[in-house]
């Protein structure tokens, strides 16, 4: 079990992470209306989402306070599976270029 907080000021210690997550979300909305190419926007938004997700996992879900063995068991396996899913992209682009109207 992770360490418990006091009942006095239970959410104050999480407020910095909360505001950072709100800031990341706000930045995503702001950047979406800038003039980036779709590829650049995708990369920027994904990077911001990964940062937000990491903060949520480490501090809201308390993975940073658990034993490192738990982190090493769960996260590398998840990242490996998600990376393996990227093999679809070449086929997706091939489909686009094989369309009759895509000259």
């Amino acid at each position, binding site marked *: *079990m*992770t360490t*418990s*907080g*006091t*009942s006095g000021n*239970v*959410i104050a210690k*999480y*407020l910095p992470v*909360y505001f950072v*997550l*709100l800031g*990341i*979300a706000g930045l*995503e*909305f702001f950047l*979406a*209306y800038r003039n980036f190419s*779709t590829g650049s*926007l*995708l990369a920027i*938004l*994904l990077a*911001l*989402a990964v940062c*937000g*997700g990491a903060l*949520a*996992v480490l501090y*809201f*879900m308390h993975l940073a306070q*658990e*034993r490192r*063995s*738990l982190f090493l*068991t*769960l996260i590398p*396996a*998840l990242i490996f*599976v*998600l990376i393996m*899913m*990227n093999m*679809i*992209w070449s*086929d*997706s*682009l091939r*489909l*686009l270029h094989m*369309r009759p*109207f*895509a000259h």
Partner: protein
Amino acid sequence: MSESDVATHGHGAALMEGSPYAIPSRKLTMWLFIISDAVTFGALLFGYGYLRTASSDWPAPFKFNPSILNVMIMTFILITSSLTMLGAVDSAKAGNKAKANRFLWSTILLGVIFAGLHIREWFALIDDGVRLFQNPWGSPLFGATFFSITGLHLLHVVCGVVAIAVVARGYTRGRLTAGHVEITGLYWHFVDLVWMFVVPLVYLLNLSR
């Protein structure tokens, strides 16, 4: 004796090897569920990316008002609900049942508002003519991917609201412990985490300009 003590040094300590993670088995189970669910959402989002890349006429239907404004409010509500859930977990661990209960019901309220806004967003798109396999703008698969991804997320939110209500009731009556509140909190934070990826990929990359 805490739950982790029971897990590592408990009744079967003489017979069983201690947990390498020093957490109760139900918490490990929730982590394993979260990882498998993350893979499910990952597969859906990659599938969506595949179809979007392979289509030359992918629709971009989301106007600032009402869609993006609605999504901004939904994002704020969901992140705030994670904060109230953290308050519930900490209060429960500190043994403050009344405070934990207030935080749990605040989380439920925020979850219900999120679900309501989500359904409003769906109805607005359906009114615009978006169906599972057709829409007025372009690739007919837009509706299938949009409703699949956001629908699965909405299902998670609804299940989370029900689970938190059950845990809140059980915790108040003394049938459930702070450990149950913590595990439900893990699930709720995961729902929040998934939304952080759904918003940029499904909404912000398909803005109507």
